[in-house]
């Protein structure tokens, strides 16, 4: 049992590290695109790792399935939100600036 708990702790800690890194990135990165990059890492990987960590603790198959489903929904929503923000920012930024940013 403690072996399983250890897995949970490791995965959840790893997830928390990603969340922390994502938050720091969100605050520290210079422009919207790199901030989005940091944010989506936190959402996708951080949440994913935490879900994996918690999967060791579930007692029924359906609960585990629900958690995976929630993760996949969060992935879909996150990537779309990111896409929408990025697209809006891209369309609103003057061309030269975008080029500078991508270079």
């Amino acid at each position: 049992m403690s072996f399983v708990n250890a897995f949970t702790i490791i995965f959840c800690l790893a997830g928390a590290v990603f969340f922390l890194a994502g938050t720091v990135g969100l605050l520290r990165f210079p422009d919207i695109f790199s901030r989005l990059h940091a944010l989506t890492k936190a959402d996708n990987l951080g949440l994913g790792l935490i879900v994996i960590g918690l999967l060791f603790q579930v007692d029924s198959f359906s609960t585990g399935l629900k958690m995976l489903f929630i993760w996949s929904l969060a992935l879909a929503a996150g990537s779309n939100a990111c896409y929408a923000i990025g697209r809006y920012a891209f369309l609103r930024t003057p061309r030269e600036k975008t080029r500078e940013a991508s270079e």
Partner: protein
Amino acid sequence: MTLLDQVFDIVVCLLLLVLAWRTLSATHLYQSAIFFIAFGLTMALAWVRLAAPDVALAEAAIGAGLLGVLLVDSLRVFARPPETGRDSEPNKPESRDNDVTTSRRRPQFNSAVASVTAGAGCLFLAYVLVAAIHDLPDGGGLTAQAAENLSRSGVEHPVTAVLLNFRGFDTWLEVGVLFLAMLGIFCAGGLVGFSETENPDPPGPLLSWLIRGLAPVMILTAAYLLWLGKLAPGGAFQAGILLAAVGILLRLAGIPLMDRVPRTVIKLGLTFGFGTFLVFGIIALLADKAFLEYPSEWAGEVILLVEAAAAISIGFTAFAFFAYLNSRDQSTGNGDTAGQPRETNPSQ
């Protein structure tokens, strides 16, 4: 109750207070709205800490979700100059970034004297309130009575039993308030009817794909929540708002929903939940029982039926809030025809 718990609670409470303060003192409307959304999310933590999953769900769906969408949509409107002056172009992209400070004539807290007086008054009131709350007895409530009657209520989840059976009258009126708010919004807009969205940007391909894919999943989840309400946190309101969210997303994706719906169907949709409750209430009266009393052997089934009707109606009404405010007739409200019935109403 460990020290860690206490520290966590105190941090959450301080965060709530700071966010509320910043929401109200921010000079920019956008800032205010963002702080308010953050406040709502922190509230969700508080609900979870207080073991109130039903409230957390309702608040997330209705308080943060529905009102959040309406608020953001309103920010968009207030960011544009009003169209009382004929020369302004409504959909010019430049006009979107207009500086929307909350009040240009004066800051929020208008003068030093007023702020000091108000501050002192607030501190005093806060002291009185907190002291009075502190004096409340440490125990009590109607838990025992609810537990005792739970088996006769037809459902197993106590909150649903209170909402749909013990205090079903409140819930009936609450569905009525939603209907009433829709009538009020019609009055504010000056006409009864919908038109297509004024949203100028078509969504990207990814978004439309996602929304189309997600809609069935969301409808399924709504049905699940509705069914779950019998046993666990969930129920008509949460399910209804999820249905509304489907509608709002589809509308944002440019799929017209309201503009082609016949007026009769709109009217039926708005009154369906309120009416179903009422019909069961009247049937009970005719059967020489109390208003809204359910036959005890069928209570569970009747509740499910009423809840389903309420969920559909709540979803429809909440979606109608958004669709109406977002309608083109609405947003190009023109000064000189104020109060006149407009010919452009498609559903009349």
